[in-house]
């Protein structure tokens, strides 16, 4: 294999190198790539907006039968956000904002209770089949101990004294081990990403592997 003759491959390769040049220091090449990136991604976002939102969610349901006239309401709310373009009507945005924030707060409460809190409590229950061996019961107890100490660490309204402070300290120990493990765990995937880029440069562009 030899070096690529495709202009597209060259463009992709040069952009890749421009971005990496930033690891050395800020330079005109990185700045160029950065601005191309910003411009393209904004144009890209608008295209996706058109394709994913305006056509299927506004145009089609509103103008094609059966007309969903109720959609005029969110469209009006959406237009109210344009109030910020004028000094006099900038407060108009507070209405859609309130609607937005309130609705999501309402959506979040039962969903968090359901899939985060109750699910985690359920998962923490020791089902007796976890007691199949000595090791598995030790594991189960360790998981509970970690959970217990971590929740104590997040207890805000009590002074950290005596046993309580010690439990919070144990909480930090567990939290740190967890962070270390999670960090080490993602290293692999991150290195894979770089390998992918390098394979592109060495194989697709330069053709030396």
């Amino acid at each position, binding site marked *: 294999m030899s070096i690529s003759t495709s202009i597209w491959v060259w463009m992709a390769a040069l952009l890749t190198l421009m971005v990496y040049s930033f*690891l*050395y220091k800020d330079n005109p090449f990185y700045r160029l790539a950065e601005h191309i990136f910003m411009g393209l991604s904004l144009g890209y976002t608008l295209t996706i907006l058109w394709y994913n939102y305006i056509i299927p969610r506004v145009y089609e349901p509103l103008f094609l039968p059966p007309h969903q006239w109720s959609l005029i309401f969110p469209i009006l709310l959406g237009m109210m956000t344009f109030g910020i373009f004028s000094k006099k009507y900038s407060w108009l945005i507070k209405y859609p904002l309130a609607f937005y924030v309130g609705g999501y707060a309402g959506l979040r409460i039962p969903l968090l209770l359901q899939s985060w809190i109750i699910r985690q409590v359920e998962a923490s229950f020791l089902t007796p089949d976890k007691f199949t061996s000595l090791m598995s019961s030790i594991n189960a107890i360790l998981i509970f101990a970690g959970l217990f100490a971590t929740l104590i660490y997040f207890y805000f309204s009590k002074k950290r004294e005596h046993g309580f402070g010690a439990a919070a300290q144990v909480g930090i120990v567990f939290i740190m081990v967890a962070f270390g493990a999670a960090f080490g*765990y*993602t*290293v*692999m*995937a991150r*290195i*894979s*990403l*770089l*390998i*992918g*880029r*390098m*394979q592109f440069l*060495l*194989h697709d562009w330069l053709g*030396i*592997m």
Partner: protein
Amino acid sequence: MGFWQRFLQLDRKWIFIGIAIVVIIPLIKPLGLPIKPTKPVIDLFTYIDTLGPESDPVMVVTGFDPSTMPELMPMEQALLRHCLTKGIPVISFGGLYPAYIGMAKMAIDEVSADFPDKKYGEDYVFLGFIPGVSAVILSIGIDIATTFGNDYYGTPIDSLPMLRGVKNYSDISLVVDVSGSSTPEYWLMYAQERYGVNIGVACTAVSAPAFYAFLQSGQFVGMLGGLKGAAEYEELMARKGYPTGRRPATIGMDSQSLAHLLIILLIILGNAGYFIVRRGERRQGIIRRKK
């Protein structure tokens, strides 16, 4: 002492150069570190390997976009290669989201170029993107032809010889979802639980542990996780003497191992330096413990 002190203040650029070197060199000159296939990978490989030209087709689903391509593209290609080598009919499905179809096209184009004797429509087919996500999965369970209508190139499904007699999941031997997100759970919920079709999964190293539970309960036939999983699959193919192409994952694994070792070496040296310098400073009374 001077050396360690300087080492502790090592400029980040040297670390970056080090990482670049240990990633690039094995790519050009592979070291060939041994790869030991693990059970989930062997399971999936063996399942596909027992199939043949007379079996029902295998469906390979593309479930990733460019961001996870380095890990997942080698898997998709290895799976397609395996099927074409064994003569198993393959349906390549372009995915549940619009951005995936481009990845699917790249994979099928590159692999089919290595199999000039395999004919499109008879040995493999390519189905495009259909909006609907879970509705699409369900709909394939009822009728493939009405779900898709045409293949990616616009040919009616009914006129593709390979898909004659393939009505729905009951005529498919395995669905493998090559996914960078949580789509394997959809396939599990809507295709496997509902229609009982076998599911295999190929996913990133980050999402692999989340799917282990399903693997243990036997809901997935097997699993490839991360670049390591892809490399193991390539290794299994090589052991059987199948054509493996460039083996991008295997080549990458050397870099992966070296980069990990370099990071660990840096951590160890950093700590050694830290202790040596601190002991020196404490001896000179520079450090006073802060309360």
